[in-house]
């Protein structure tokens, strides 16, 4: 009787263990994805925050701008294509993020006082590899700090 009980308990334990293992893997994957998203978002917001101009050719999936890096203005392009997000600089193109849920990442807001894009909103949506039907979303809105200095006066 006790053996049968042990068997039942063991089966239950293994079942719980299996579920817990899957859940833990999902949690770990979710955490990893969130960490990657935060890193990418921090990098993008930093560079956009100190950008001078956003190219008029920028779209919902591509943002092209010039930003100060170590005091020097350099061109940077972020492109969301398929399920990957890439960054292109003079040094080449690098993949920053995979498993994008959408390529519509960027929205732009014009300033009232001076023409041109003053605010950029980013909405990163990622499907974790182990749970593709779940979507993680991180949002941020950036105010361009250096844009007005690029405006020319008389």
């Amino acid at each position, binding site marked *: 009787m*006790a053996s049968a009980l042990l068997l039942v308990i063991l089966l239950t334990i293994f079942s719980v263990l299996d579920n*817990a293992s899957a859940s833990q893997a999902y949690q770990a994957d979710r955490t990893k994805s969130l960490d990657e998203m935060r890193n990418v978002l921090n990098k993008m917001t930093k560079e956009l925050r100190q950008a001078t101009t956003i190219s008029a050719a920028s779209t919902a999936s591509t943002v092209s701008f010039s930003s100060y890096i170590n005091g020097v203005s350099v061109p940077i392009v972020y492109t969301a294509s398929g399920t990957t997000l890439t960054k292109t600089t003079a040094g080449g193109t690098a993949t920053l993020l995979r498993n994008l849920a959408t390529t519509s990442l960027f929205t732009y807001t014009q300033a009232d006082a001076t023409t041109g894009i003053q605010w950029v909103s980013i909405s990163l949506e990622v499907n974790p590899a182990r749970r593709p039907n779940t979507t993680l979303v991180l949002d941020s809105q950036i105010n361009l*700090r250096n844009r007005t200095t690029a405006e020319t006066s008389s």
Partner: protein
Amino acid sequence: MKQFFRTRDERGVALVTAIMVGFVGTMFVTTMMYVSFHNQTSSAKNRSWGQSLHVAESGVHQAIAYLQNSSGVVPSGTQTGTTAEGTYQYRITALTRNRYQVDVVGSVGTASTTQSSRRIRVTMAPPISFKYALFSLSDITTKNNNTVCGDVWANTYVEVYNGDSVLASTDPSCPAGGTGGSGNVAAATSYISMSNNSTIAGDAWSGGYDSSNYGISMGGGARVLGNAKASSSTPACADDPGNTKYKIGSSGNVSGAATAWGTITSTVTGTKLQNTCTPAPATKTIPTYTFNAANYPAGTMHQYTFPADYAAFNTYIAANKNNLSGTFYITGGGSAYPVSLDGTTVTGDLTVIATASPIDMTSGGMGASGSTDKVVVLASWYAAPASGCTTTGGNPADCAVGFKNNFDMNSGSLSADDNTAVLIYAPNGPVAFKNNAEFHGAIFANNVQIKNNMNVAYDDRIDQIVGFGNATLDIENWEECDPGAVTTSSCG
């Protein structure tokens, strides 16, 4: 046997089961707690990271407020402050010519795992006000072999006379490394007249027409190396339904595209669009100026009220004519009390602000010497009509700023380096030059009249002059640096 199995089979099983259940449960709880703690810490760290930037920006605003209250006197050492979210430290370093570097570190959180610090560096500077080599609220007239490196803007018409050239800043005849303009000429509400063999290296854009109905009038050998556009200030060109005005011609060459509401009889290399209406450029205003003695080094400040101090001013100039520098703020006066800089040599930053008197240099020349970098600002609010500024022979007469003979701030050719940059500013009256003026800088005036061999190259050292523009200081550059102490010199 039965007894044996029953006894061996069940003894201690409950304990083993309990231990296993306990072990698995402990593992499960431990794992969940680890993930939960990681998420919690990560979230807290991320929140601190975001907040620390806000705290650092609070420090920037505190530093700006300090500069405003102290009239530009920087605090010594590192200053500290607190917000509801965290603490900040800031340092202000005074740079040259009213520029300030503000370094700030914002910190949020106390526990080592969730604490965040971010460092930002902001450069404050006068706003960008001057981007043209020549700027006129009315017209610009030039005569006889003048060279301009940079862009030219007039709210009415522009005359580019025989042999005159408006060149891109990158032209070999212009100073090396120039980035100020493409050699464009714009006449917002009137015409551009190009006499024989004159050159506009950039685009020519007019908004009106001359007495012969030309928007852009080109003589023999005249060249526009960019595009030429004869536009109308009237919406839809409704002022000329028959296409008889806004012409481009009757000679010369346009290397780029040519677009006109009227006919085009010049030779055009690019696309030629006749009877095509385009809107004229909007007129521009001249940057305003606000005097504040605190913007200038106290030891260099000289204030005079004319006519009472007229003799004292002239005495000072005579005594220092070979070594002139400093800030001169002159109120009062008028045409009978001109600020004469005849025969002076500039050796350091020089600012002359004359609220009512003209600034003259008649024949003794004006130059610069020494190896130090210098910025010269000559500004007069004297009001006079353009018609009385020059005589028939082109000599400066009743001008806001009138210089004749050898206003030469450049020791070599125009393309040579020049450690002196000059801004001439006259919002209410005309500026006139005659004979051999040469300098790097710009002229912004109500009217500009130039004659005989004047060479001017736009110099971006004058694009930001304190007092000019809609604010004393703007944020010129905002950059987040790698985390570090507020005293860290690099911003990697």
